[in-house]
């Protein structure tokens, strides 16, 4: 219980991947994983492998596309990019998330009183 690192909910990881791609532009799996770790300042328990399940899921929904390219340090890697549908989805999800977060936050504050 004392562990401050949280497990990631499935849907949330998808959202984070989308957000990362939206913010950073095309990126490979490793880069996405690193970026999420950095942003969360290691508050999230991320097994880097799980990123790939999320990437398959997003591809199947046509929210991201993939293509092979060359990385900064000259390695061949598969790059993912967000699609227009992906952006729309991200916007909807973000709005939804903020609404729910707001509701839950209010609820928690209410019960504290």
């Amino acid at each position, binding site marked *: 219980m004392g562990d401050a690192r949280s497990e990631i909910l499935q849907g949330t990881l998808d959202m984070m991947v989308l957000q990362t791609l939206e913010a950073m532009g095309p990126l490979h799996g490793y880069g996405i994983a690193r970026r999420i770790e950095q942003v969360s300042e290691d508050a999230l328990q991320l097994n880097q492998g799980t990123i790939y399940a999320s990437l398959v899921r997003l591809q199947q929904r046509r929210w991201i596309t993939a293509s092979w390219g060359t990385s900064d340090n000259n390695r061949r*890697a*598969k790059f993912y990019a967000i699609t227009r549908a992906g952006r729309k989805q991200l916007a909807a999800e973000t709005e939804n998330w903020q609404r729910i977060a707001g509701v839950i936050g209010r609820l928690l504050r209410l019960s504290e009183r």
Partner: protein
Amino acid sequence: MTTLVVLWSRIRALFARERLDADFGAELDAHLDMLADEHVRRGLTPDAARRAARLALGGSMQLVEAHRDRRGLPIVETTVQDVRYAVRALRRHPVYTSVVVLTLAVGVGAATAMFTVVRAVLLRPLPYGQPAQLVEITETNPLKGWTHTVSAPANFLDWRARNDVFTDLAGYFGVDDRGASTLQRFVEIDGEPAPLSGVAVTGNLFDVLGVRPLLGRTFTWDETFDGSDRVLVLAYGTWQRLFGGDPNVIGRTIPLSGRTKTVVGVMPPGFFFPNATAQFWAPLGLSPADFANTRRAHYLAAIARLKPGVSLPQARDRMTRIASDLEREHPDTNTQMGVRIEPLRDIMAAHARASVLMLSAAVAVLFLIVCANVAGLQLGRASTRLREIAVRRALGAGRGRLVRQLLAEAVVLSIAGSTLGLAIAAAAPALILRAAPSALPLFATPTVDVPVLLFAAALAIAAPIVFGLAPAWSSSGVERLAERVDSGSRRTSRARDLLVALEVMLSVVLVVASTLLIRSLIRLQRVDPGFRPEHAVAFKVTLPSLRFPQGADRVRAFGDIERRLRELPGVEAVGASSTIVLRGYAWTGDATIEGRAADDYERELRHESVTPGYFAAAGIRLVAGRMLTEHDGATSNVMLVNESLAAAYFRGADPIGKRIMFGRPTADSPTIARAAADPWMTVVGVVADAKQDGMDKPVRPEVYVPYAANVQNPATFVVRSSADPDPMLAAARRIVRAAGRDFLVGDETTLDGVVSASLGGERFRTSLLTAFAGVAVFLAALGIYGVLAYFVSQRSRELGIRLALGAKPRELFAMVVRQGMRPVVAGGLVGLAAAVALTRLMASLLFGVSALDPVSYAATIGALALTALGSAALPARRATRVDPMTALREE
């Protein structure tokens, strides 16, 4: 929408497995490299960096698996894998696989073939509008021994006018008891006369059936009658044959037996009434007065359509009241005349129904045996695979996965077997029709159509569930297999014993049933038909009635043919008759016997017009008095009677010299046209009873009058000769054709063929059931053999030790046989009890044999005991030949 997109991408992934795997592998490698680079930057050695990277990323196999699961459809993939594995495993055991596939093919093939028959005879809806509303109406009369006789036209008209339960009634004429068309006409095609059989109908028949023509129109009620009846509706096939499918056929005329008829309609393909032998439909052509006044002669078959909401019992009730009104109004003709109303579908299938139901039950039993057999084989195979299964279990295969693997094998076997079975079934309809043309109702043509395919598919699905789950169920022992392989095998052999007992039990039922049918058939074939069927051919000759309007002309024409036939080489006797033995239909008339009260005897008498040579040609013996001679003509007022008539009507008194009259002075019956002023006819001789309705039916009283006294057209000629039937019939056809180019020859057969055709239904069901029983016994024998062969191979070590210790081979032989007989005896006893209970249901199909016939039961027990011992002997002999050294080394 998204779900569909995802599903589509998953399905696509199934077909790009290798590329996607390689792609993902490369991606993971890249990821590892980058991760390792990072670790190197943090100061690790390259090796340590790689290890750390691996740890951080997780096991790559798991990742690949997870990726696959996510990317594709895991159920499909494991199923494909299971199936692929099953095919590979089965290919390694070709003998086992082919035995199972062939067994299944027999089961599925037999069941599906039977289903085509069931569907054709009992299930397929008749091709009419709202066919469930259609009924057949017949007349009954205990005084005349009638249970379902076609109606008298006047009664039909009264029913039609007075009832309020039917939308309408329609009548038709020209079909015999078996449904074959008797109305023969001919048309000229390229100058050659071609016979056409048709049905004469009331104008509203098609409306009552609720059918529309393909072209033109059908008849109106007014066209029923003489004068407006020169119209014709053609069957689709006739239209194709005569007019090459010409769409402008409506309005064209054809000379039908010399009478010009106008084609007004063509029926759609697939339409038949009352069966597929009808090639055209023509109006009855009676005068309205004839129609309304004929109450004594019965020749109009009647159908009707129930009004919506009217039930069969309501209709029966209403019609019974109308019939009793008619009885009061016409005591002369309608005393005790009742009506019988049955669904048209049932009537059409009536004579095949019991057979088809019995055979369906038999085929279901056979299918169970097939499943039991395959289950036994599967069990045997499963028990030899216990080690393999135990290993896979130890390596972590889930129980469900193992059961699925076993089921996958079952499914593969079942699909192969069912496909082969379907091929067998597809060939069956043609075979059935060729082997037993008279066994099925004439309207019912078995075909392989969509429901039949669905049925076969259902069997293919049901079979593996029945036989595949048995090994799966038995491998619940798999749980403990790792520790005790033996317990599993013992359990398996108990299950196999049970299966053998089941097979034996079911086989006993089938063998008893088929033995009963075989014995019935033998009894039937031994029945003295009262005529001599061998060395005699028969054929029907129809004269064109326009060219031969007078009875005397017809007698002369038939006499000419008879004379010329007699001159053929090898001919011993020639005669003609208005009907023929064993054809199931007869002319009957209301008869009066001199000196007897009118209510003292069955009034409705069968009569047949014959030429003097008929009795010698058909081989019907003279019992008393004299035969007819050439001098007995239209006015000689003589007749012969059969023995049944002599016994029933004259009760031991000498019938010779007694007098019988047809009808009464005011008779309205057209069935006997008497030229003589004196209606009384004197009995001059008694002939033996010749079977009329069937070998299993009692002979009814019948009289024979000289052909000239009651001329019928067509006449059936019988020629007794030493020549072979085919050349004889060919010669006969030439003679008839020479006598008149427009004379029609039909129904060519031998008297043997007539007997055989009358037993067609019996022979059909007997041979099919016997085939089923034979397959069942063979499968049971295979089952017994399989269990014992396995028993011997499992115990070879024990057997070897026993032999080494001095056991006599005879004792070992007996031990194995005893082992094998346990399930056989148990199953056999239950089977006998089941047979006693079940064969009672087929009593209506038996002739001269009781359902509890001890001979049949004894034969069954004997046959099965021999088979069982025979199939046990082979493995038992192997037991006595076990080499102790080899056996001991084997383990």
